[in-house]
C-alpha cells in the first residue's frame, strides 16, 4: 500500500506549485479598489461588517472605525453586498476602474432586521441566508447563552428549534447528549457530526475527559450553525443522519486595527436542590418501626446530613484575553483562556488552559485565501469521587463521619459498616466523606485541533476555484487513580494506584473544486470534492496496582504482545453539490455523496447519499416585492438520504477474528493456565444505516422584518438500522450481534419566531421563541416481527441486577417505559406487590407489563427576550420540555429493606407515603411526568462605552444560571438523559459577575 500521507503531501505541493506558476497571469488583469464606511443607526462605525463583491469571493471586513477597503476588484460594474449579524444587509452598486480607488458613500445599517443577506455557514462553504434551501439555523456569538459556560454546546442550549441539549449533570465538563430531531438511530450513535472550522472532530470520549467538546473554549466561538435536514446535511453523507453542527471560531479581518479584548467572569455555584431523603430522626423511627432486631441494634446516635457534608459553594474564574487585527494583508487573532472551575462536590475541579491562533491572509489580490487555525487546550481534571453523590443520599444519617472505636482505625477513622466480627462489611454503602477524602482521581487531557485551508481562484477559468483543507485533531488523555489501602471502598484489594492512557489522532484531507457561472436564466454553482479522514484510537493497558505498588492484576498484553490496542476508522468520501439560482426567486440545490468506511467489509464499504431541494422565494415575485407587510416569504422543499456507520466501540464488526482473554479469564487444563482464544461474533454483511428525510419549510418575515422566523415540517425514516439484536441460536457465534435490521421514523414540526417589540434608537426589545414537536416510532425491529415479541429490553436501573425498565418495541417510541400497572386501595394508596392483571390470564407475570410513555419530550420549547436601553442590556433564556417522563429510580428504591445485613440504607421520603417493605421496581407508580420550565439564564449588563479613550470599551455584567425550574417532578432535577433518575450530580445555580475591556 502506498503511504497516503506522502500522497497528500505531494498533492499539497502540486497545488502550491500550480499557484506560483499562475502568479503572472493575474498581474495583468485590470482591477481597482473599493473603499467605504459602514455605520449603525447612530452613525457610529461598525467593526467586523462583511463586505462582499457579489458573485465573487472577493471581499473584506470593516475595521474598528467601520472602514473597509477591498482591493483586487476587477474593473467594471459590481454590486457590494454588505452584511453583518443582527443588522439588515444592503446592496450597493459600484463601478470600479482599473488602478483606481472608488469611494462608496457611507452606508447606514439598520439593526435587528431579518438579516437575509447574512452569510450562513453551510457544508463546504457559506451561503446568503436568503439563498438557503435547507433547514439551517445559525446562532452567532451575540445570541449565545451568557454567564459561566464551560462546554460550547451550552452556548446554544434552548436556542435552536429541533435541537435538544441535555447535560449529564452539574459536574464541570460533564458529558452532554445532543439530539437533533429526535435521533435517527437505535443502537448506533445518535450524536450529530460536529465540525470545527472545517475539521470534523472525533466524538469519542477520551479517557480522562467526560465531554470531548469541553476542550474547546466557548469564548473563541463566533457562530454555531446547525444543519438539520438532509438537503443541508447530505453533503456529509456518511455521518449526517443525526444532523451536523458547524462551529466557526473568531478570526481577524482585513484592515482591522489591533484590538485587545480581556474578560473575566467570576462565579459562585450553589446547590439548587438536595435529594429529599430522611433526616436522622425520621430514619431512626423508620428503622424502629420496620427493622429487624439486628438493624435496630446498629442505629447510631449522630445526626449527619451527608449531602451537606459533601457539597460546597463552588467558585470559578474564567479569564480570557484575545488580540486581533491585521498586519497588512494578514489578519490574525490570538487568544488565551484560563478557566478554573470548582464542582459542587468537594475536591472536584477543572482547570482549563486554552490558546488559539487564527491567520487568514488574503494573497495574490484576493485570489488566494488562506486560513490557518490552530487551537490547543490543556485540561487538568480532579474528578473527586462522584460515587459520593449517590452514597450521600443513602448512607445512614444516624452515623457520624468519624468514629472513635479502634475497629474503625483501619479505615482512616471514618465510620464504616462492619460485620459483627469486626471485619469490614463489603456490601455496605461506603462513608460518603471517606469516599472523596480517600481518593485522588486526576487526569490531564490535551487536545489540539488545527487546519490549513487554501482557497484559490484559478486564473484560467473565471468562476473556478479550488479549495484544499488539511487538518488534524489530536488528543492525549492521561490519568491516575490513587486510593489508599485503608480506604474502605478498596480495602479488600489493598487500595488502588493506577494510571491510564489513551491517544486519539484524527487526520483530515479535503479538496474540492467550485465552479460558478451564469447559465441560461440563472446562476450556477457546482462543487465537487474528495474527503479523507482517519481516526486512530489507541489505548494503553497497564498492570492493576494496589496502593503499595504491588500488582493486584497483571496487564493483559494484546494478541501481538503489545501493551496498546489500536482501533482505526477510515472514511473516504466523494461529494458534489449543484446550486442553481434563478433571479433570486427559484433556488435549486442537489447534492450527492459517495462515502466509504473501513467499518464494513470490502464490497460493502460504500454508501450513496443523494439529496435535492427547491426553494421558492415568493418575496422575489412582483406581487410581494414592494410589500412591507410581508417582508420575506420563502417556501423550501427538500429530500435527501444520509447515512450512519458509527457503531460506537465496534470498529470491525465484519471481521471473523478471535479475541484473547485477559489474565483473569484464563482456564486451567492440567497444570497449565491458558489465556483463551474466543471466536467472536461477526457479520460480514453489515453495511450502512440510511435515513431518508423529507422537509418542508417556510421562512417568513412580516411588518418590515419586525416579526420573522420559520416553520418546518419533517419526516425522517431510518431503515437498515445498525441494530444490536438477538441472533438466532446457532446462526452466529453469539446470541447478539450487529445487523442491519429494523426501521424507525421521526416526524415533527419546528417553529421559530422572532419579534422586535420595540425598536427605537435608545430602546430595543426583542423576543424570540422556538418550539419543536417530535414523534418517534419504531416501525420494525427484527427480521420477522411477531406479536409475541416483547422487543428489546433496555434501560438498566439500579436495584437488583440486570433489571431494565424500558423497551424498544415496534409501534412505540424508542425506549418506552415498560412497567406494571400499580393497583391502589380506595384511599389511593398503592397496594404493595399488587398489579393490574392487564392480559386477564389470572396470574401476574411479565406478560402484564405494558408500555407507558417515553423519556423523550413531545414538545421542546425555548425562548428568551433581550432588552437594551442605552448602555443597559437585560436578557434571559427559558427552556421547557413537555411530555417527557422519568422513571424515578430513587423513589423506586425507597422501600424498607429488611434484608440488609449489618448496614442500613437511608431512603427517599417516598418510603413514608408508600410504606413499601419490598422492592416494586417495575411499578408505574414511580413513573413521573417530568415536564418542566427552566430559566436557563438571566443577564444584566451595562456597557460603559468609551470610558477612557476613543475606541475602548468597558462592560460589566451580572448573570444567574439555572435561575429556577418549575416542574411537578419529585426528584432533584427533571432533566435526566435517558429518563432513569438514579440521582444526578446536582446542576448548580450559578451567579456570575463579568467584566470585559476592549481597547
Amino acid at each position, binding site marked *: 500500500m502506498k503511504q497516503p500521507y506522502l500522497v497528500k503531501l505531494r*498533492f499539497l505541493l502540486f497545488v502550491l506549485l500550480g499557484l506560483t506558476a499562475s502568479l503572472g497571469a493575474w498581474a495583468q488583469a485590470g482591477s481597482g479598489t473599493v473603499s467605504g464606511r459602514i455605520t449603525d443607526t447612530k452613525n457610529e462605525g461598525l467593526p467586523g461588517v462583511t463586505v462582499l463583491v457579489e458573485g465573487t469571493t472577493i471581499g473584506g471586513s470593516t475595521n474598528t472605525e467601520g472602514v473597509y477597503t477591498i482591493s483586487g476588484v476587477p474593473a467594471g460594474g459590481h454590486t457590494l453586498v454588505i452584511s453583518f449579524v443582527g443588522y439588515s444587509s444592503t446592496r450597493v452598486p459600484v463601478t470600479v476602474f482599473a488602478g483606481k480607488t472608488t469611494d462608496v458613500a457611507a452606508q447606514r445599517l439598520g439593526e435587528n432586521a431579518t438579516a437575509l443577506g447574512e452569510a450562513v455557514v453551510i457544508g463546504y462553504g457559506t451561503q446568503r441566508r436568503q439563498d438557503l434551501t435547507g433547514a439551517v439555523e445559525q446562532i452567532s456569538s451575540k445570541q449565545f447563552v451568557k454567564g459561566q459556560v464551560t462546554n460550547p454546546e451550552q452556548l446554544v442550549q434552548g436556542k435552536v428549534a429541533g435541537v435538544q441539549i441535555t447535560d449529564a449533570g452539574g459536574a464541570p465538563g460533564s458529558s452532554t447528549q445532543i439530539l437533533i430531531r429526535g435521533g435517527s438511530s437505535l443502537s448506533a450513535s445518535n450524536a450529530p457530526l460536529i465540525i470545527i472550522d472545517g475539521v470534523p472532530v472525533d466524538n469519542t470520549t477520551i479517557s480522562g475527559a467526560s465531554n470531548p467538546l469541553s476542550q474547546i473554549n466557548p469564548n473563541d466561538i463566533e457562530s454555531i450553525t446547525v444543519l438539520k435536514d438532509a438537503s443541508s446535511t447530505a453533503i456529509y453523507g456518511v455521518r449526517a443522519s443525526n444532523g451536523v453542527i458547524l462551529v466557526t471560531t473568531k478570526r481577524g479581518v482585513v484592515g482591522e486595527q489591533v484590538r485587545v479584548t480581556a474578560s473575566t467572569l467570576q462565579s459562585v455555584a450553589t446547590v439548587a436542590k438536595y435529594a429529599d431523603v430522611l433526616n436522622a430522626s425520621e430514619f431512626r423511627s423508620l428503622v424502629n418501626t420496620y427493622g429487624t432486631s439486628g438493624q435496630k441494634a446498629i442505629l447510631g446516635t449522630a445526626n449527619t446530613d451527608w449531602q451537606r457534608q459533601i457539597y460546597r459553594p463552588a467558585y470559578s474564574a474564567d479569564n480570557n484575553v484575545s488580540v486581533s487585527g491585521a498586519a497588512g494583508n494578514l489578519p490574525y487573532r490570538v487568544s488565551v483562556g484560563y478557566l478554573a472551575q470548582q464542582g459542587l462536590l468537594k475536591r472536584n475541579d477543572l482547570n482549563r488552559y486554552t490558546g488559539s491562533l487564527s491567520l487568514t491572509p488574503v494573497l495574490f489580490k484576493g485570489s488566494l485565501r488562506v486560513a490557518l487555525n490552530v487551537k490547543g487546550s490543556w485540561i487538568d481534571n480532579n474528578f473527586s469521587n462522584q460515587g459520593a453523590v449517590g452514597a450521600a443520599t443513602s448512607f445512614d444519617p444516624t452515623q457520624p463521619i468519624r468514629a472513635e472505636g479502634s475497629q474503625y482505625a483501619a479505615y482512616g477513622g471514618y465510620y464504616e459498616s462492619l*460485620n459483627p466480627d469486626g471485619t469490614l462489611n463489603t456490601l455496605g454503602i461506603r462513608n460518603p466523606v471517606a469516599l472523596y477524602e480517600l481518593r485522588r482521581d486526576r487526569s490531564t487531557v490535551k487536545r489540539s485541533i488545527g487546519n490549513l485551508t487554501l482557497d484559490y481562484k484559478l486564473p484560467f477559468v473565471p468562476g473556478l476555484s479550488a479549495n484544499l483543507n488539511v487538518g488534524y485533531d489530536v488528543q492525549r488523555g492521561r490519568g491516575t487513580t490513587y486510593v489508599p489501602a485503608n480506604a474502605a471502598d478498596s480495602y479488600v484489594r489493598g487500595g488502588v494506584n493506577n494510571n491510564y492512557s489513551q491517544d486519539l489522532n484524527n487526520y483530515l484531507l479535503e479538496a474540492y473544486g467550485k465552479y460558478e457561472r451564469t447559465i441560461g436564466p440563472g446562476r450556477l454553482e457546482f462543487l465537487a470534492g474528495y474527503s479523507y479522514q482517519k481516526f486512530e484510537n489507541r489505548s494503553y493497558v497497564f498492570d492493576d496496582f494496589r496502593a503499595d505498588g504491588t500488582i493486584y492484576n497483571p496487564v493483559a498484553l494484546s494478541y501481538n504482545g503489545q501493551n496498546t490496542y489500536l482501533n482505526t476508522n477510515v472514511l473516504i468520501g466523494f461529494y458534489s453539490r449543484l446550486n442553481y439560482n434563478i433571479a433570486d426567486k427559484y433556488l435549486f440545490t442537489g447534492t450527492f455523496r459517495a462515502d466509504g468506511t473501513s467499518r464494513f467489509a470490502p464490497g460493502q464499504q460504500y454508501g450513496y447519499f443523494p439529496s435535492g431541494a427547491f426553494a421558492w422565494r415568493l418575496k422575489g415575485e412582483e406581487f410581494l416585492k414592494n410589500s412591507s407587510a410581508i417582508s420575506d416569504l420563502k417556501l423550501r422543499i427538500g429530500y435527501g438520504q444520509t447515512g450512519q456507520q458509527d457503531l460506537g466501540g465496534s470498529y470491525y464488526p465484519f471481521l471473523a477474528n478471535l479475541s484473547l482473554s485477559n489474565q483473569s479469564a*484464563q482456564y486451567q487444563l492440567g497444570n497449565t493456565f491458558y489465556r483463551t*482464544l*474466543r471466536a467472536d461474533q461477526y457479520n460480514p454483511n453489515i453495511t450502512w444505516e440510511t435515513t431518508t428525510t423529507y422537509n418542508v419549510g417556510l421562512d417568513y418575515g412580516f411588518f418590515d422584518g419586525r416579526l420573522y422566523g420559520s416553520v418546518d415540517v419533517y419526516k425522517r425514516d431510518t431503515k437498515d438500522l445498525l441494530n444490536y439484536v438477538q441472533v438466532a441460536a446457532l446462526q452466529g457465534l453469539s446470541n447478539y450481534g450487529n445487523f442491519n435490521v429494523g426501521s424507525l421514523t421521526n416526524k415533527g414540526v419546528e417553529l421559530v419566531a422572532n419579534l422586535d417589540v420595540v425598536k427605537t434608537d435608545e430602546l430595543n426589545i426583542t423576543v424570540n421563541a422556538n418550539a419543536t414537536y417530535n414523534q418517534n416510532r419504531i416501525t420494525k425491529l427484527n427480521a420477522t416481527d411477531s406479536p409475541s415479541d416483547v422487543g428489546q429490553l433496555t434501560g438498566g436501573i439500579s436495584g437488583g441486577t440486570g433489571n431494565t425498565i424500558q423497551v424498544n418495541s415496534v409501534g412505540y417510541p424508542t425506549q418506552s417505559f415498560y412497567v406494571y400497572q400499580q393497583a391502589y386501595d380506595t384511599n389511593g394508596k398503592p397496594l404493595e406487590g399488587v398489579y393490574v392483571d392487564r392480559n386477564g390470564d389470572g396470574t401476574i407475570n411479565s406478560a402484564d407489563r405494558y408500555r407507558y410513555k417515553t423519556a423523550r419530550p413531545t414538545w421542546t420549547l425555548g425562548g428568551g427576550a433581550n432588552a437594551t436601553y442605552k448602555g443597559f442590556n437585560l436578557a434571559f433564556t427559558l427552556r421547557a420540555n413537555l411530555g417527557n417522563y422519568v422513571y424515578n429510580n430513587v423513589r423506586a428504591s425507597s422501600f424498607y429493606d429488611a434484608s440488609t445485613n449489618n448496614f442500613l440504607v437511608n431512603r427517599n421520603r417516598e418510603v413514608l407515603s408508600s410504606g413499601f417493605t419490598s422492592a416494586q421496581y417495575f411499578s408505574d407508580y414511580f413513573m413521573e411526568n417530568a415536564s418542566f420550565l427552566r430559566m436557563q439564564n438571566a443577564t444584566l449588563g451595562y456597557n460603559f462605552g468609551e470610558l477612557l479613550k476613543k475606541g475602548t470599551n468597558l462592560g460589566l455584567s451580572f448573570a444567574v444560571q439555572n435561575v429556577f425550574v418549575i416542574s411537578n417532578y419529585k426528584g432533584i432535577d427533571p432533566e435526566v438523559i435517558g429518563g432513569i433518575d438514579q440521582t444526578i450530580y446536582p446542576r448548580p445555580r450559578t451567579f456570575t459577575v463579568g467584566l470585559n475591556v476592549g481597547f
Partner: protein
Amino acid sequence: MQTKFTRTLGMLALAAGLTALSSACTKDLDQVPSYSANAEVVYSDPAQIQQVLARLYATYAVSGQQGPSGQPDISGIDEGFSNYIRVYWQLQEITTDEAVLGWNDGNLPAINTLTWNADNEFVRGAYDRIYYQIGLCNEFIRQTTDANLASRGITGATATTVKQYRSEARLLRAMSYWHIVDLFGGGPFATETDVLGTLPQYKNRADIFTYVESELKALEATDATNGGLLAPKGVYARADQAVCWTLLAKLYLNAQVYTGTPRYTDAVTYTNKVLAASYQLSTTPSAQYSAYQKLFLADNNTGEARNEIIFPIAFDGTRTRGYGGMTYLVHAAVGGTLSPAAIGINSGWGGFRARQQLTALLTSPSVSATDARRTILYTSGQRLNVDTLTAVSNGYLLPKYKNVTSTGVKGSDTAGDFPDTDFPMFRLADVKLMYAEAVLRGGAGGTAGTALSQVNEVRRRAGSADLATVALADILDERARELYWEGHRRTDLIRFGRYTSNYNWALKGGVNGGRDVDATRALFPIPNTDIVANPNLQGHQNPGY
C-alpha cells in the same frame, strides 16, 4: 491561444492529481486490528488451537474474555448472570425443593415459584448460554476437520493431539445438547457441517437424543492414540473417557423421560465402566473438615477430592474469575449471621436458602445427627420455613461450597472475591447412586446387592448408618442428601415423576405450602426471542407456553 492551452493543462493536472490521490487513499479503507487473531493463523498453530480448546472449557467458568467481567460472550442479560454453571444450576436447583434464591432481579422470583413464561430472562439466559457453547464447539470442530488440519500443515503426532482436542469439543457439545434435551426438549440444531449465518432447523427431543447418543458412542469407540478422548484421570479438568461414560449413563438413565423408551441396561453398562475406572470416594477427613466437605473446598483439585471428581469445572481466585460459577455459589449461600470470613470470602450475597423440604430430608431419622452432609446446615438466626422469598432469614443456610482449603486456609484471592474451589460437574458418588437406581429400575448387568452396597458406601462416607434394604424411593432421597446444590435435582424429580405433581414444596406454584403445577412445566419454554429470530422455530414452542 496560450491561455486556453494553460487552462486545459491546469485542468488536466488537477484532475490527474485528484485521481491519483483518491485511488491511493481508497485502499486505506481496509483496516484490520493487530491486537486480535485471525482464524487462519490461529488454526495453523497447535499451541493456539489449545488456547481455543481451553476457551470451550472456560465457557463453564467465565462469562467473557475479560475476567471477572468484560467483553461478554452473550448479551441481553447481566454478564454475571449469564455464566454457564450459574444459569444451569439455577434452573436445576431453585425450581425444586432444594433451594430458593430470594433476590429481586427481574423475573428471578418466577423461577423460584415455577411461574416463568417464555419471556423470562433467566430461562433465556440458560438457553442462550447453552447454545452459545454449542456454537463455539461447532466452530472449533469446523476449523479442525481433517481436511483443514492437512491444508494448514498439521500432520503426524501433532495432528493426533489436535484430533484429541476435537474429540473433547465433540464431547462438550454433546453435553450441551444433552442440557437442551433435558431442559427444553427439542430446539434448533446445527453441527459443524452447517454454514455459519444460516438459520438452523428445529429438531425434536428424541432426535437430538439420538444425535447425542451417536456422538458419544462414536467418541467412546476411539482412544487417545487415534485422536480420541484421553483415558480417565489423564489430565486435570479435561473431559476424558470417564466423562463420556458418565454422560452416556445419564442419558440412558433418563431415556424414558426423553424418548419414552427405557434404557436402564445401557445405563448400568456405562456406570459399570466408570466404577471400574480408578475413581474413589474421598473418605479421610482433615482436622477441620469432613471427607464429604473436602469435595467442595478450595483445594478440591488435589488429594482425595480429585480422586472422586470425574469432571471438575476449574476455578481460580486470581486467574479464572467471574461473577457466575463458584463465585456465585459461594457468596450467594452466605447471609444472616454466617461469617463470610469463615467461608473464605469477604461478603455474603444473602441469596440461597434451603427449603424446609430439603432440611427435612437432611434431618430425617435415617440420617445420623453427625452426618457430614447434614452438619453443613446453618441455622443460627434462620427460620426453618421459607414463607417470604426475599427474606434472608427464611430457610436454613447451606454453605456447602467454601473458599477455604481442607486445612482451613483462605483461597488465593487476597481480596476474598473469587474462590479457588472447583465445581464438581460429575463425581463418583453420583455414579454409584445412578448405578443403584438403574439396577433397581430393572437394568441388566448389575445386582441388587451391589446396588445396596454402592448406596451404603455413599452413606457411610457421610457418617450415616447403612441401609438394610434399598428401594427406588430411597434413591431419590439419598440423591438429595448426597448431591444437593450440585445441579441434579430437577432432572431427578422429573425422572421420579415428582416434579410437577405428587410432591410439593414451599412456594411451588407461588403459594406458601406449594401446589401442583401444570405437567408442561417439566420443560422450559423456548424463549420468545429465539422464536422471533428464527422462523424455523415457529410452531415448535413447548406445550403450555
